[in-house]
């Protein structure tokens, strides 16, 4: 490893953003050298990994030099001063384009920055580039991307997971200090698991969705993708808090978790849902969860068996609610005000303009989900599908509340398998079933985090395995402190291998 992200010692190998930030503040390195190093790594690796769709090299270097000049002048540095951060391409930035990895928006330029981006920039972060994703955040592999599939830095014959594929690959590949993704049913946590990084889906309403291209409005949440739990805490602190432009943000002050994340929780109760330890999971996945449970026991925590009988029903609930909301949200792409517009032949009508623009602009998975949602919301089917799914949603939320009466956090797998090969889940339903452990977090609106916990060996390569912790709504303090305890305890295991990029 040669990048500056990999050569400072201390907290973790490779260095996390907090360590880099502290090094800049202490004057032992410069923001410019960190930024230039990551740009060099990106230039070397992105052709193969395809994490970034656009890189703002000049902008990033200029912003980093401004941080260095502030540091030399002795001005106080904001919390993310000079840190190069990658932005998923469904989050609006005035820099570059915001394409959602779709032909529909291939030339779309946002006239405004998302609130999350604005807050990161305000905290001194450097917007480094836009990352590739499954089109409109619909997918679990990073394969459904207009700009080509994203590759997993640990094994380039395998997917990085999705939909925040490029963000996960960029963090794992040392191309940026941290990234943001979005998570509608696992799109931050599952790629974090596949790429060996930390991925946090905050409680619904924690971070403003202003400027996040809408997919499932009652499920979507922006979150950090980082090299460490404390980095996730720091980024959540910067991005969280009420936003007048998004009436679904929670009326709560920004979090201050970076202050508390190192503090272990005395008497922690860790619930393991019986339904999560399925024989259908790869054996290394269950082994990683068991090893995590052992680590918690060694730290004095109590392991509590809990029941979440509706776990399996989550996928069905999700694949009603998410496509229903998507079919409604994506109705705005009609080829009139922005986005792809088809060329009409003389005599063709307005309906044809709409339908052809949409069919040319959207890829097959997006069209499939629009069709599914449209069908389930259509006359005569609404009660049978949508209303029923919303009733099950309440039952799922009630089950979580019941479980959290017996424990502080839930522990289980993030995904049933490590990263799979390209094309391995070409059947749409098989792909959907990969999300079994992540969708219910979004359905209930609670918070969850995936952290690296072990490896599976496949064809001589080590593939990361993440475990997921979940906590009840607005319990991120508890969630990340519990995650930090586990991260510290598992350091020897998780630092045994690094991606061979």
């Amino acid at each position, binding site marked *: 490893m040669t990048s500056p992200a990999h050569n400072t010692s201390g907290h973790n190998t490779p260095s996390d953003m907090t360590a880099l930030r502290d090094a800049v503040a202490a004057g032992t390195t410069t923001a410019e050298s960190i930024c230039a190093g990551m740009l060099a790594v990106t230039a070397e690796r992105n052709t193969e990994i395809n994490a970034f769709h656009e890189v703002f090299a000049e902008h990033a270097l200029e912003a980093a030099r401004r941080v260095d000049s502030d540091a030399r002048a002795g001005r106080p540095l904001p919390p993310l001063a000079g840190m190069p951060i990658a932005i998923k391409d469904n989050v609006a930035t005035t820099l570059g384009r915001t394409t959602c990895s779709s032909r529909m928006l291939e*030339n*779309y*330029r946002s*006239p405004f920055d998302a609130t999350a981006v604005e807050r990161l920039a305000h905290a001194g972060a450097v917007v480094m580039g836009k990352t590739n994703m499954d089109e409109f955040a619909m997918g679990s592999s990073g394969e459904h991307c207009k700009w080509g599939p994203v590759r997993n830095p640990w094994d380039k014959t395998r997917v990085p997971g999705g939909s925040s594929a490029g963000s996960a690959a960029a963090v794992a590949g040392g191309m940026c200090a941290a990234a943001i993704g979005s998570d509608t049913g696992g799109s931050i946590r599952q790629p974090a698991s596949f790429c060996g990084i930390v991925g946090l889906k905050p409680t*619904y309403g924690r971070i403003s969705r202003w400027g996040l291209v809408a997919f499932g409005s*009652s499920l979507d949440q922006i979150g950090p993708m980082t090299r460490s739990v404390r980095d996730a805490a720091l980024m959540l602190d910067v991005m969280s808090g009420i936003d007048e432009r998004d*009436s*679904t943000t*929670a009326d709560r002050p920004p979090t201050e978790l970076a202050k508390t994340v190192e503090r272990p929780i005395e008497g922690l109760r860790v619930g393991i849902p019986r339904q999560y330890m399925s024989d259908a999971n790869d054996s290394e996945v269950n082994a990683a969860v068991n090893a995590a449970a052992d680590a918690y026991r060694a730290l004095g925590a109590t392991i509590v068996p809990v029941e979440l009988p*509706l776990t*399996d*029903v989550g996928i*069905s609930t999700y*694949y*009603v609610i998410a496509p229903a909301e998507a*079919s409604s949200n994506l109705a705005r792409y*009609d080829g*009139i*005000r*922005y*986005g*792809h*517009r088809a060329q*009409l032949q003389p005599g063709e*009508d*307005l*309906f*044809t*303009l709409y*339908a*052809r623009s*949409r*069919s040319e602009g959207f890829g097959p998975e997006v*069209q*499939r989900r*629009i*069709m*599914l949602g*449209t*069908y389930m919301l*259509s006359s005569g*089917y609404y009660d*049978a*599908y949508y*209303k*029923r*799914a*919303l*009733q*099950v*949603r*309440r*039952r799922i*939320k009630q089950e979580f509340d019941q479980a959290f009466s017996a424990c502080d956090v839930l522990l289980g797998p993030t995904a049933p398998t490590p990263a799979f090969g390209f094309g391995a889940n070409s*059947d*749409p*339903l098989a792909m*959907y079933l990969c999300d079994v452990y992540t969708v219910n977090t979004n359905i*209930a*609106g609670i918070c969850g985090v995936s952290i690296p916990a072990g490896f599976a060996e496949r064809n001589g390569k080590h593939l990361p395995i993440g475990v997921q912790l979940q906590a009840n709504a607005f319990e991120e303090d508890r969630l990340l402190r519990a995650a930090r305890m586990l991260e510290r305890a598992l350091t020897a295991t998780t630092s045994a291998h690094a991606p061979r990029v």
Partner: protein
Amino acid sequence: MPDNPHSKTAALTTAQVTHVAKLARLEVSPGRIEEYRTQLAAVLGHIAQLDAVDLAGVEPMAHPFESHNRLAADIPVEGLSIEAVLMNAPAVEGRFLAVPKVLAEGD
């Protein structure tokens, strides 16, 4: 996937899928209609497992927050400029979005 005898989707027909494509404003070739029919039937067949959940007396939950409307202060704020609104338009005439003729001859 085992067949579910109570599935609402057993009868998902080509005509229904064609109708849904029209409602969704998608132009789908006949070959793709058949592909969608098979794929949607598989997903809907799986979703039929929701029928087995006991939902007696359970109210639908449309949103994780069950709070009431939050009203913004009644103070005018500046919207996007015309330039910003038009910068992504596929076709523009002066200060306006240009669209093809909406009404056919004789309408």
